[in-house]
């Protein structure tokens, strides 16, 4: 092989040309990404729901003061009316449980029809050591197990921290109902899709409080922003000794309970 051919060969297959081609190839891979990103930037102002509500500006949570709850069940009634939850005694987006710790350590928990008609006296009072009511609802976990297990991506965490179900995508497989450690979900008997508390998304996106908070006669429920210092919820978290349900599961619930007893689960 003569000298000229050698040089020509090096130009074509040499290290320098290889690195050059490699650079071009990698750069061409990135081009569509840059284009897509600039598309997203143009879209940014459209990230606002109708009615000037920007979900990126909010992060919702709820506080529940157990020592204020009187177990009247007005929240349960309000929730069922507001969200057209089936009236049957086993479909609830929120419900109230009564805990009675008896002499000898037995813990009696009941919630007749979700406490929609309050409670009755059915145990000897002298046997009760202590007792209280615990309103329950979807905890809107920050790391939600229900979202993880959904095989079709129908349930998701919105930018404002609310866990919602896309009824159009839901195939009604009930994995999420199984996965929720708080029992906050049910299968709607007519639509056959998973249903749960939405923090009354249609109300909070219009500046109203959720129906249960609105109806609570003793203000045992507090609703507000988690990331804004001036919110009533932040005040609730500052002023109370708060706990969450099942902290060992690392679901990071956004429903906080003041005066939470160890027996509650």
């Amino acid at each position: 092989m003569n000298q000229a051919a050698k040089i020509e060969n090096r130009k074509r297959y040499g290290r320098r040309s290889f690195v050059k081609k490699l650079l071009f190839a990698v750069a061409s891979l990135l081009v569509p990404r840059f284009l897509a990103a600039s598309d997203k930037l143009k879209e940014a102002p459209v990230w606002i729901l109708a009615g000037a509500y920007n979900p990126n500006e909010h992060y919702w949570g709820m506080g529940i003061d157990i020592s204020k709850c009187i177990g009247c069940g007005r929240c349960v009634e309000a929730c069922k009316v507001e969200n057209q939850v089936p009236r049957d005694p086993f479909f609830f987006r929120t419900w109230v449980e009564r805990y009675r710790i008896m002499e000898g350590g037995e813990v009696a928990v009941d919630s007749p029809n979700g406490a929609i008609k309050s409670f009755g006296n059915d145990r000897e009072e002298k046997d009760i050591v202590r007792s209280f009511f615990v309103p329950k609802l979807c905890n809107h976990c920050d790391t939600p197990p229900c979202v993880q297990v959904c095989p079709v991506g129908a349930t998701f965490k919105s930018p404002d921290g609310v866990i919602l179900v896309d009824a159009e995508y839901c195939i009604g497989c009930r994995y999420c109902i199984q996965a929720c450690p708080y029992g906050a979900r049910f299968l709607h008997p007519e639509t056959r899709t998973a249903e749960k508390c939405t923090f009354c998304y249609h109300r909070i996106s219009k500046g109203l409080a959720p129906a249960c908070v609105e109806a609570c006669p003793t203000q045992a429920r507090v609703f507000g922003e988690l990331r804004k210092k001036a919110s009533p919820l932040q005040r609730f978290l500052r002023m109370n000794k708060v706990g969450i349900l099942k902290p060992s599961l690392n679901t990071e619930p956004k429903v906080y309970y003041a005066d939470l007893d160890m027996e509650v689960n």
Partner: protein
Amino acid sequence: MDVFELLKRIRLFWSRIPEQVQRLSLLAVFFIVLFIPVRNLLVPKDFGKYGHYRPSALEEAAAQEITYAGHEACYECHDDVVDTKYHGYHKTVACETCHGPAAAHTEDPDVELPAPRERGYCPLCHEYLASRPTGFPQIVSASHNPLKPCIACHNPHDPVPPHTPAECEACHAAIARTKAVSHHVYVPCVRCHETPEEHKVSPRQHRPSKPATREFCAACHAEGATTELETRKVDLATHGERYTCWQCHYPHLPGSR
């Protein structure tokens, strides 16, 4: 390198591939090409705008109809009732808690809202339950003026008992029971707790006083005090001098420790 040479090279490469691989790869290419339009058709245009989900699901959730108008809506027309309620015990009870969802009523005032007048409604909150917080006003409806509707005596917008109970124990029953079995049984509550008259109306705004010094107890219990002989007397100088009395003695049951 021109296009023809490139094509020639590709044809050469293709001919070197075994035939079965050629067919399989053609099939693969066909499915990949088919996949792109099918995916575009099935996945909504704005999918992934907020996250890995259909963004219009958010708008659908937000579009649900409101039935509870919210506590501020009532004030516009019913300011008199809201004002009455604001100064009473039912201050925190929203109108819609008793009158039901009012969004339809705010749109069209001809839609009338129910007002629960029957005896069964108020006990939802006020029936005695052992689990209700201490101090929350409760009755046993079986013995509390049976058959009489609640609103015969109580105005639900400004609920006060027809007669404020004169005795402290009407509200402070647990303390009264303890004191009844203690040495302090004959000491009236007001000897230690100066109680403003308004305490009976708004108990938390007008709180009774509490003794603050050792000298207060000493008025009866110091040596040389002019109380009866049976009253225990101690020398204030040597008896637990660094402590206030109620750090050791519970005033409502002074015998206990």
